[in-house]
């Protein structure tokens, strides 16, 4: 019982869950979106500022959620900060694959292997299908913010 749980709740996740990074808003945001998981009531807002060359100059989030969704959001803000929108999108694609085990893992020049490596701490959700949405909520919301949608739902 405990092994899979330890795999899910690794120290890094517990740390990000308790002390989320970039947990604030962005005053001069160029986009933001609300994300919700109707199943568990998790809600968060992702803010971002995209500048020249489609570079994400600032990204942050606020909201309430379980350890997995908060940790995932926190790690996401760290990883996409300074990346281009395209790079962020490519990273999400690979991360989504990692969480669901669906689709083929293809090498993508846009994805830094180190970033992907950091995200593997969240891949424990694969053993907990109902929790995959917790891990991907922030990323879906980031996508919505990039695309200029105001709402995103993990349902």
């Amino acid at each position, binding site marked *: *019982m*405990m092994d*899979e*749980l330890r795999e*899910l*709740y690794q120290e890094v996740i*517990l740390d990000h869950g308790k002390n989320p990074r970039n947990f604030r808003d962005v005053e001069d945001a160029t986009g933001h979106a609300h994300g919700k998981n109707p*199943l*568990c*009531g*998790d*809600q968060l807002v992702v803010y971002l500022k995209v500048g020249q060359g489609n570079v994400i100059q600032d990204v942050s989030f606020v909201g*309430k*959620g*379980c*350890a*997995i969704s908060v940790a995932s959001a926190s790690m996401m803000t760290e990883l996409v900060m300074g990346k281009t929108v395209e790079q962020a999108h490519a990273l999400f694609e690979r991360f989504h694959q990692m969480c669901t085990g669906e689709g083929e893992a293809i090498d993508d020049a846009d994805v830094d292997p180190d970033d992907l490596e950091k995200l593997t701490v969240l891949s424990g959700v694969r053993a*907990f299908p109902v*929790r995959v949405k*917790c891990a991907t909520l922030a990323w879906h919301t980031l996508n919505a913010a990039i695309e200029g949608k105001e709402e995103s739902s993990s349902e």
Partner: protein
Amino acid sequence: MSNPAQAASIEAALPYDVEAYRKDFPILSETVHGRPLVYLDNGASAQKPRQVIDAITHVYEHEYANVHRGVHYMSERATDAYEGARRKVQGFLNAKHEREIIFTRNATEALNMVVRTHGQKFLQPGDEILISIMEHHSNIVPWQMLAAEKGLKLKAVPITEDGELNMTAFREMLTPETKMVAITHISNALGTINDAAEITRLAHDAGAAVLLDGSQAAVHMPVDVQALDCDFYVFTGHKLYGPSGVGVLYGKEARLEAMPPFLGGGDMIETVTLEGSTWAALPNKFEAGTPMIAQAIGLGAAVDYVTNIGMDRISAHEEDLRRYATQRLSSIPGLKIYGTAPRKAAVISFTVEGVHSHDIATIIDRAGVACRAGHHCAQPLMEMLGVPATTRASFGLYNTLADADALVEALESAREFFGL
């Protein structure tokens, strides 16, 4: 039974043999992640005893055909069994007449049926509907939809700090415009047992019709619709140890007679011509199309099952569980229970400081403990309480003190996990 009161008192004197009842539920011997199943999600849906499972199998093996239409032997058998289930439900709720019992798909459909027939016909623009803040979404959303269409006013009675219906506010909110009061008998999220008889009396004095949502109450306590004097009472089969796919609408005969049909189709008509149709008598008027035959018969078996044990005794057993579990849970640091009304069913909603309810549910699941985490389809209540989600342990007739211990132990390991 020659004398129900006497029979009840003899029953009450018998010891409650929970281990014997547990043996009736095959699923309770399943293991989850290598641990015995500790099922504390009865508020969402209850497990089924062998007697119900067998009754459903029996229908398909020995007495199945369509009901109400065949002149052949099997149709008669099936019709007898189906109508027999209705009689059992009538007895279970102590309704005056069999024809006051309508089979529906679930409690949600029963609620929508009242909204779309009684509500549609008798509520006029400006009329007020009174619900409470502790309603399940199924007793909020259908009224909202009707209110928007017809220009009605929907008002929600607040609750006290303990999670009881604020009766002072209720009295004040009842006005001459209030034409419908629709309130839950027991809160699914807080466990509060509302004073349904008093609510009904006050509402009737104000000239309003009363609907009680008995989805939780019919499972946890004896219900007597004549004593309550409500106009409508709804509950669902799957929470009462019966199959999913069947629920019940009880309505006073005069109310049901005055209402237009809900769905049109076969079985609900008397005569049909291309120019127009006339409606069948109760209860068929509200049961268009082939009904949930085996499910209704299964519900009848579930009613027999709980009646044989005795709803009073189930209620007393669950009260023991509630007291014990509440006391044990309270010893966990940072644990807060939502809903502390003096009259409460064995439904315990809580949060643990520092651990989100979704994480709790995942961790305790690995210990075999099944609880619900989330908003319990009661988002307005959760918003008022200021919590996005709680964990809810809801007990049933087969739960034991050891189940409460397993929950507490699992919660302690969850806290440990989070370094608390």
